[in-house]
């Protein structure tokens, strides 16, 4: 890409244009940031497990097996029937981990979409139209960001009632402020580009400028933010489950499996380890991916 730099100087405009296509962006990215690759694999693996959970399951994940509890009523360690062992209600942990992928992914994705939607809309409105609207929206984000986050979600779920939809809403509503801030900053900087002025001079409507020019420019940071927030929200779900307000039983999420596991971890650590490992890998996958994408979109670092 040296030509780009050199041709900034008009004299060199006659320089030959590269005939050979530059190495594909993906490959260069991989070389510079191999961890993105790992992240991508982890995320794809998660999606695969979530989609094909019914095909991969050994047992119905919600079925309580009489022979799934020890004589004392405790969970069974991993064995030939229950490969990951059973939980404290005699359910197959392997199958629950598979289905937990679904719920955890759902919570992560849907709540992120909610915050993405609210945050992007408000961020654009705030950044593009400015003035009074901007002041009000920014004040709102100040309020959101000053809220102790877990207490806020917990209080919200307590008021709305416990359901997976309310969980999406609570986590989603919590996350929009950061997105709005980032989007607004990006809009503010894009808005000043002369090509936006040029479009305006050409008679482009506000809507056209927003959708065709400004929006494509805010996509990269928003993608990064959303990727990271999916992982974060999966983690938040586990915390909420620990506090007893996560996904409603009997459905498994890794969060509520961990919450159950933490009660018995001293004598049945597998209840903590399998969903814990799954959650760690999934969140890590999103974090690696988001982190790598951030680098990829960062114009200063990858050319």
């Amino acid at each position, binding site marked *: 890409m040296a030509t780009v730099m050199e041709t900034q100087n008009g004299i060199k405009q006659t320089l030959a244009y590269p005939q050979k296509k530059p190495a594909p962006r993906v490959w260069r990215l991989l070389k510079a940031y191999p961890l993105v690759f790992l992240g991508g694999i982890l995320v794809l693996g998660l999606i695969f497990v979530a989609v094909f959970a019914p095909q991969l399951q050994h047992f119905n994940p*919600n*079925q*309580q097996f*009489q022979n799934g*509890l020890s004589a*004392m*009523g*405790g969970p069974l360690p991993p064995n030939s029937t229950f490969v990951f062992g059973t939980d*404290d*209600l005699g359910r197959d942990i392997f199958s629950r981990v598979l289905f937990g992928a679904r719920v955890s992914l759902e919570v992560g994705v849907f709540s992120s979409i909610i915050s993405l939607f609210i945050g992007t809309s408000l961020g654009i409105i705030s950044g593009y139209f400015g003035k009074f609207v901007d002041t009000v929206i920014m004040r709102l984000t100040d309020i959101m960001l000053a809220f102790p986050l877990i207490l806020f979600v917990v209080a919200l779920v*307590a008021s709305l*009632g*416990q359901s997976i939809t309310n969980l999406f809403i609570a986590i989603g509503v919590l996350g929009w402020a950061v997105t709005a801030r980032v989007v607004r900053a990006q809009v503010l900087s894009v808005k000043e580009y002369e090509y936006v002025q040029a479009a305006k001079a050409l008679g482009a409507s506000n809507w056209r400028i927003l959708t065709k020019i400004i929006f494509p420019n805010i996509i990269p940071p928003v993608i990064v933010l959303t990727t990271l927030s999916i992982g974060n929200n999966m983690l938040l779900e586990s915390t909420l489950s620990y506090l*007893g307000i996560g996904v*409603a*039983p*009997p459905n498994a999420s890794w969060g509520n499996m961990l919450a*159950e596991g*933490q*009660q*018995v*971890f*001293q*004598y049945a650590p597998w209840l903590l380890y399998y969903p814990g490992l799954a959650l760690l890998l999934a969140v890590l996958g999103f974090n690696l991916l988001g982190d790598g994408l951030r680098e990829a979109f960062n114009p200063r670092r990858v050319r």
Partner: protein
Amino acid sequence: MKINKKTRLLGVVASVTLLGAALAGCSTQPSATSQAPTTPTAPATTGAQPVYGGTLNLDLAGAFPHLDPVKAYDTTSYEAVLQFYNQLVTYKGATNTIIPSLASRYTISPNGKVYTFYLANAKFWNGHPVTAQSFITEFERVLNPVNSSGGQGFIDPFIAGSNAYYSGHAKTISGLKSLNGGKTLQITLTQRDPVFLYVLAMPFFSAVDPTYIAGHSESYIDHNPMGTGPFYLASYQPNQQWVLKKNPHYFQKGIPYLNEIVFTNNSSPSAELLHYKQGLTGLLGYNIGGNGIPSQDYLPIVMSPTYSKQVYKVVQVATQYIGLNNKVGPTANVKVRRALEYAINKNYLVKVLGGRALPANQIIPPSMPSGYEAKLPANATYSYNPALAKKLLAQAGYPHGFTTTIYCDNSNPDDLRITEAVQSMLKAVGVTANINQSSWGTFLTNNETGNQPMFNLAWVEDFPDPSDFLNTLFNSNQRPVNNSTMYSNPAVDKLLNTAANMPAGTARDNLYKQAQNIIMSQAAWIPYAYPVFTAAVQPWLKGYYLNPNQVDPLQYVWIAKH
């Protein structure tokens, strides 16, 4: 009383009837070395003579909400008050036998209405003597609406003049008299009351120092007790530590043995277990009326060859049940309710509880002195039979089942596990039950509307009489607050109302049994377990026993050399 089984903090639960209870002969020591004490002052123990001195460290789940006897009605406060204050009478060892305490002896008039208590020579920690006025002041405080005391319902309107005092029509309680220069207290009742001595054993009716009460604010008294008890509160750091020191002038000679008890606030069950294993704390499951061994710590204890030997157990006079709404929804149909009875595998639920319960087949627990039926009639007996349950559901018009909601509260993980297990069993017979879990307060508010289709709850008796279960929970005049399944049957009402006015005895017991048979045949509840209270006690902590009435034996225990 309606209680979430393992709630550590009952908080605000109040009841018209008596908390804690008689449990004659039902205290068990399945695996431990504890024996029932022969006398309250010198519990028999195997081995050595009691040793004086030492500090006992205990973990405490939450703060003591109240140290004022008037306000202590949650299990944590209840037990704390027993360390600081004494009552006229108390329970003997691990039994339900009432024995004198601050009253060195008492007499009851032949008509059962006049009680005369002859007070022991006891002093408060500040040196003031205990007099009849010490009790009169406390009775007045219990009845004063300003204090909203949970004890009010236990003596109003049973003590003469109590209602007049409560409603502000009288300046004094006419039924209370100080005689013999304050050395004798005479209490006159409005009617014969067979449970009155149990009432007097409750912490509400402790001796308080009138001058101390007059000289301090309510909130000060609530945090700075002034009693006659075996230990006094030497110091406390809010939410961290309470240090109790031996009362050297305790009116019972020879006790307590311990110099000091230190309660450390620690709400993490994992940490509690590890503290016990490290030998830092003397016992696991201090709070007798509350949790006992935290449910998540129970299996690690009983699965260990060492620690399982240190476990004390006692069957509580309580029943855990699934309430079925008798008025609205599919469960209003008696055939549906009967079908559901067959759908529940109680042995499995007991297993889920880690064995800390006995499977239940009726409303009255076996630990109740009277009313428990060794064998129920065939139409009131249910065994686990999902096929039959499905068949009955089809007959009732629900061949494909139905969708409903089970309510439970969030104060203990066991509640959710049990509810989930029930959910799974219902699913097996085609009934889809969603779980609605909420805080205890929300659950109660909602429960008392009588609109919950199904709920998971427990009832702990207030006094050792079947009326406390059957009348309180199934009389149609108790709807919807206590009778929150909305059960209503004129025949049962008639039996219950008749039995209430009868003298104790077989005839009366039989009426209750008849009532229970009808209720069980109509399947108003699915009683599934009688809970077992557990505690793990270090082998070096001697003299320990479990009394079902929440009277802990801390004044009798001693630390052996170890």
